[in-house]
């Protein structure tokens, strides 16, 4: 496939040059000319006023023969299913209906078979369980190896996982081994009716644009999905399905990684990626001790404390709390930003939040451009007010 330019039609108006997000087309000698950065996204084709641009060549036909089914990886840690597993089942069900295919969940761990019941009631038609002491602690070698071989055996059309630390760690290994495409951190998934192709939408360029990705020729189509964006499906009590027990004895396993132990972060009752409410502090806090104020507010709201890079770099709170491009990506129901200016790199990490409240004494702070509710004022007056009013309401 290639981008074709009809030099007779081209007027060198440069509409394509402006439209291209990748700087991949320029006017050379009076004709629009693509360079090696072109990835055939077609943004230029859409804007050309004289239709001088077209994408030619046949898309390699999907190798869909024999691939069927939507799989989701049901992550569990410490015997507890991650909330994202249910979001995946919700979205997975929508995709499975469109494709008229079964929805299966894949569960790994030790002594975790009982968790399958929750997966069935949440919509899984099948649950593949690999229950083995060797899978008690997460290692990329084993989880990746087992999933790869399961996929080779059963050939699902689509495989989804949460874009959690675990998912982002081992799913790429699986995609690489299967020589197939993987799209990271999707915020939107859909199936194209014409050819059953999975349309995978995700932010790019630090969140400045959205891109829709496809995997036309390779199978399965794989994606990791941003937690807290997709909707959970309905829970049908009593619903059951096919439990498929997977024994590790049939697999070739390579174990060059040893899981030693898990050290829990006890500073947060709920981890940031799963939190419903996050109270985030930025440079405007001024000192480490003021995070105590945000902690009080977060506790009253049953939430967690986040921080901007500026606050973490100032040494006021540990990196585990950092939200943003070089920290964690979160999508809580409520995000309260206190003393946060709203630099682009921070916004990238929290734009999926459902409701954003901003408190900042600078009315021109960029955070107010993305906030649903903006409170211009002194956070050292407003946050105590919030705490006071919450306490009063609860008593």
């Amino acid at each position: 496939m290639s981008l074709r330019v009809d030099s007779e039609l081209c007027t060198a108006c440069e509409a394509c040059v402006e439209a291209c997000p990748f700087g991949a087309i320029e006017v050379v000698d009076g004709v629009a000319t693509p360079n090696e950065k072109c990835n055939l996204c077609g943004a230029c084709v859409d804007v050309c006023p004289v239709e001088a641009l077209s994408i030619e060549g046949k898309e390699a036909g999907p190798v869909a023969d024999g691939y069927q089914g939507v799989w989701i990886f049901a992550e569990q840690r410490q015997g507890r299913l991650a909330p994202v597993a249910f979001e995946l089942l919700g979205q997975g069900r929508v995709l499975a209906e469109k494709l008229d295919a079964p929805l299966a969940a894949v569960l790994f761990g030790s002594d975790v078979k009982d968790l399958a019941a929750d997966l069935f009631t949440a919509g899984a038609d099948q649950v593949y369980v690999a229950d083995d002491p060797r899978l008690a602690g997460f290692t990329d070698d084993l989880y990746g190896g087992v999933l790869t071989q399961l996929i080779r055996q059963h050939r699902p059309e689509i495989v989804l996982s949460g874009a959690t630390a675990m998912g982002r760690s081992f799913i790429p290994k699986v995609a690489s081994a299967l020589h197939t495409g993987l799209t990271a951190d999707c915020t939107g998934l859909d199936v194209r009716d014409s050819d059953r192709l999975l349309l995978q939408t995700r932010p790019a360029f630090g969140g400045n644009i959205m891109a829709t990705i496809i995997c036309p020729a390779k199978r399965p189509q794989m994606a990791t999905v941003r937690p807290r964006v997709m909707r959970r499906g309905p829970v049908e009590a009593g619903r059951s399905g096919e439990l498929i027990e997977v024994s590790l004895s049939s697999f070739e396993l390579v174990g060059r990684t040893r899981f030693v132990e898990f050290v829990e972060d006890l500073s947060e009752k709920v981890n940031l990626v799963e939190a419903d409410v996050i109270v985030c502090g930025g440079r405007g806090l001024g000192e480490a001790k003021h995070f105590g104020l945000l902690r009080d507010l977060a506790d009253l709201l049953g939430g967690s404390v986040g921080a901007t890079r500026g606050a973490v770099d100032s040494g006021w709170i540990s990196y585990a709390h950092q939200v943003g491009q070089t920290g964690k990506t979160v999508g809580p129901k409520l995000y309260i930003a206190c003393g946060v200016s709203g630099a682009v790199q921070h916004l990238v990490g929290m734009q999926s939040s459902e409701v954003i409240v901003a408190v900042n004494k600078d009315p021109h702070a960029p955070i107010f451009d993305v906030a649903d509710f903006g409170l211009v004022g002194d956070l050292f007056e407003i946050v105590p007010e919030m705490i006071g009013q919450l306490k009063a309401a609860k008593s």
Partner: protein
Amino acid sequence: MEILICIKQVPDTRDVKLDPETNTLKREGVDSIVNPFDLYAMEAALALRDAHGGQVTALTMGPPQAAEALRELVSYGVDEAALLSDRAFAGADTWATSYTLALGAKKLGGFDLIVCGKQAIDGDTAQVGPELAEQLGLPYAAFVRRIVSFDPESGRLTVERLMDDGYDVVEIELPALITVVKEIGEPRVPSLKGKMRAKKIDIPVLTAADIEADEDKIGLSGSPTRVLEVFAPQPRGQRVSIEGEPGEQVRELFEHLKKDKTLAAKVGAS
């Protein structure tokens, strides 16, 4: 310890702005920088080299100007560098990129450890590190926040891997690959002698032919995924400005929030 760091030169996405009228990215005046996470990878590699001896080599796949990023790393103390550059590599997704880097790593040869930054700030996928490990058949640990210990006798590296709810301690056998997060340690400063060395150092360019790449596996044609379309994100934010004294502001805010059932439960029914 022979260490390879795989890096990327990226546009400074902190400066990239969307033009609201044309819905395209304004790219003028945007600097090219070394991907910030890769500086942390470099520091981790240099620290290991300082402790255990050996050499650090930097490798990148990119256009000819990516050599500047490699030179910058040499000014910090990286010993050698190589550039994978060929028109055929362009347009690669993470699979094709990791395939290419793997061949480059094999060509340079003899590495005990490969260190990558967690992700590049333009692609944000965090996939190349693990995919590269798989291409090379290496064990790996992603999101490493601390190197706990290295035992030269057994060749085992013990690391702390950052998870969403804490961290895992895992032990991997070298040769291996790790991707690192910021907690691994602040990058050092470059040196004057390093800058002078960086200016003069020869950076070999490896083409597709040099690494005997299979043309079906590199660049745009070697990529299992491709971009179907790009579009501007939905502008978000109702941008309701709440004024008044702090007490009034908070009261009004809570009234708004209570319109949502879940949030109403959290702020307490009045």
